[in-house]
């Protein structure tokens, strides 16, 4: 591997899925770190609150390499009084559908001046122009 672009090549070689996993592990560790600091706690305080005896376990969680389980995040959230799991109903983005109507209007037709009104009405009501009689 060419050393000049080595770092960039490595960054490009990682899959989007793995990249996001690494980011989220580190961001979650940072979030927990912030919650510990906000309470004025040290790692050992968190360890005690969770009934643990091994501080290296807490160190491992905060190292940015840990793949958290839902149970552990629930336990951490309980003792730190922070919701690490967003369990609110997800908002699903509705697909925005747009329609384009192309019509040719005969300028001499008596009802042509209403063409724009008809177009706006169709767009608002989501109607098809095939249902409209322009020459009634």
């Amino acid at each position, binding site marked *: 591997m060419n*050393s000049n672009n080595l770092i960039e090549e490595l*960054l490009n070689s990682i899959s989007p899925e793995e*990249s996001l996993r690494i980011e989220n592990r580190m961001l979650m560790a940072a979030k927990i770190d912030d919650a510990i600091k906000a309470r004025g706690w040290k790692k050992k305080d968190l360890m005690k609150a969770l009934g643990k005896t091994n501080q290296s376990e807490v160190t491992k969680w905060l190292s940015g*390499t840990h793949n958290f389980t839902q149970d552990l995040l629930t336990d951490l959230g309980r003792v730190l009084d922070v919701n690490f799991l967003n369990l609110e109903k997800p908002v699903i983005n509705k697909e925005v559908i747009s329609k384009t109507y192309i019509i040719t209007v005969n300028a001499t037709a008596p009802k042509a001046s209403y063409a724009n009104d008809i177009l706006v009405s169709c767009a608002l009501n989501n109607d098809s122009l095939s249902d409209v009689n322009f020459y009634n």
Partner: protein
Amino acid sequence: MKCRLKKITNLSGNKASVYSVVIGDGNKTLYEQFISENFDLYKSEIININKRLQVIGTQTGARDIFFKPNEGALGDGVVALYDDPKKKLRLYCIKYGNQIIIVGGGGSKNTRTLQDDPKLKDENYFLRWLSKQITSRLNDDIRFSKDGLDFDGNLEFEDNRND
């Protein structure tokens, strides 16, 4: 032998700057050497470490929690980036708050202490020496930038430890 600090721009961001060290007249940093030396045996770990350094630079900053402390002499800021606990790859760094890290070299740690492994000892003791040099010149010809994200000044050092 001369050496100089070089900022790794594609890992640095508005949370932290990631520097490494170029030895002599070359252009390859100690970090790039570390990658080259370990890529074949530890490909996934290297890719992971590289990404994590980028996340530190751009999103989280160099928080203490991401680094194994006290890997150098007392108070010199030499630390090791935590790796997957099942892995043995050590990457030594010097940390200046949450905003600057200097990434050195490292390697696979298979001995109880780093002093038992000549390669790791060399890499680690070089950073201990470099940290001393920087500390002795801070506020003299090396300064932190106003935003704390960079070193300003003369970033070249003369390594005369073997003279």
